[in-house]
């Protein structure tokens, strides 16, 4: 349970079949199919309002789809419930960072709620370049720093599937480089990433699959 699973690359971990979603009586997408194998990175593209965020929320299991299935290792995610949630880390539009709590407390919280990784808090702070900010309340951080703190969830928990909605928003080029690196390493370790981004994404040459929504 502690190390990310590394099944043979031939097997698809995440299977999406015939996904249909309606919002405000309008079809957002119909008959959406894709499979993701271990180590693959999927970039969901499309104009504003085409349902990228909705798709990611369906993949998390926060939102229910009209029809179609999302399967993890062959099992529908609704059936897996919390044991699916142990495998995923989601960073959405909202940071999910408690502003009243310090940086350290926020990271500890992420660890307590998820499936904590072996990384120490010090290591995490060093990677996201917030070393020395442990006791600073999150509300005095800049937007970019807070985004890095939100993304630290990826490091604090042992998740196989990262679902990231516009992860690079308000990050500077250095911040983007940190997380592009992390995603490349995660993919090399057999992890999966599903993300949306308005920024051009370059993950150090790692192949990125693209899914275009209309």
């Amino acid at each position, binding site marked *: 349970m502690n190390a990310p699973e590394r099944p043979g690359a031939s097997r698809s971990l995440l299977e999406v079949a015939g996904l249909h979603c309606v919002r405000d009586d309008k079809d957002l997408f119909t008959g959406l199919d894709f499979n993701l194998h271990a180590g693959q990175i999927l970039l969901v593209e499309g104009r504003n309002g085409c349902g990228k965020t909705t798709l990611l929320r369906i993949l998390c299991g926060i939102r229910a789809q009209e029809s179609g299935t999302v399967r993890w290792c062959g099992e529908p995610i609704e059936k897996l419930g919390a044991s699916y949630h142990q495998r995923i880390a989601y960073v959405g539009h909202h*940071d*999910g*960072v408690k502003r009243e709590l310090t940086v350290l407390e926020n990271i500890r919280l992420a660890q307590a709620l*998820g499936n904590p990784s072996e990384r120490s808090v010090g290591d995490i702070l060093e990677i996201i370049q917030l070393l020395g900010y442990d006791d600073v309340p999150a509300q005095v951080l800049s937007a970019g720093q807070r985004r890095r703190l939100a993304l630290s969830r990826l490091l604090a928990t042992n998740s196989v599937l990262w679902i990231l909605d516009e992860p690079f928003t308000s990050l500077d080029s250095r911040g983007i480089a940190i997380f592009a690196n992390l995603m490349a390493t995660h993919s090399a370790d057999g992890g999966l990433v599903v993300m949306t981004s308005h920024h051009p994404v370059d993950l150090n040459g790692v192949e990125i699959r693209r899914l275009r929504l209309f």
Partner: protein
Amino acid sequence: MNRRSLTRAFLFLLKRDMLISFRRRSEAINPLLFFVIVVTLFPLGIGSDTKLIQAMAPGVLWVAALLASMLSLDSIFRSDFEDGSLEQLLLSAHPVTVLVLAKVTAHWLVTGLPLMLVAPLLAVLLGLPGQGLSALMLTLLLGTPVLSLVGAIGVALTVGLRRGGVIISLLVLPLYTPVLILGSSTVQFAAAGLPVNGQLSMLAAMLALALALAPLPTAAALRLSLS
């Protein structure tokens, strides 16, 4: 997930919510302030009829406690909803019902428990006979957690709406009335020197029922509100 990590998550979330309330003290103290103000204003409004005030004391204390508890309900999930923490709670590796229970417990420790501790002072102010004091504290100890637990269902249903305040009252008040009736009548009986074991057992049963059942619809309602 094993039981130890579940306990850890429960305690951590409880601690987190209490810490946040502590850092937002000025907001957290509002329900208590409301309770004290309402109860102290009653004798001023009624006048010098001490018999009447004494007779009304159990009802006044309980109604004020109920309203104070209801006013503070929105804070259980509102800020978590707005900053995205609620999504993270629903996506946690632990059962949502346990996390809901942790949040409601924290809410009660911050709002319900202080009411219970201050109530005897206000009861003396209203001239409630001494033999009613322990019953007052006991009924509040058993009753206010029920209010928090049941109220959490209402908040979870309305947290997605921009102005959920009025709807919460409509949803939750009918469910609050049995607690109010039982709570204040128990105090009246005790003040008159009658045995109240039966009523206290009923309140305890309500609490047990709410503890066991309320987190389930709350978790379901949170999922609905976020989807």
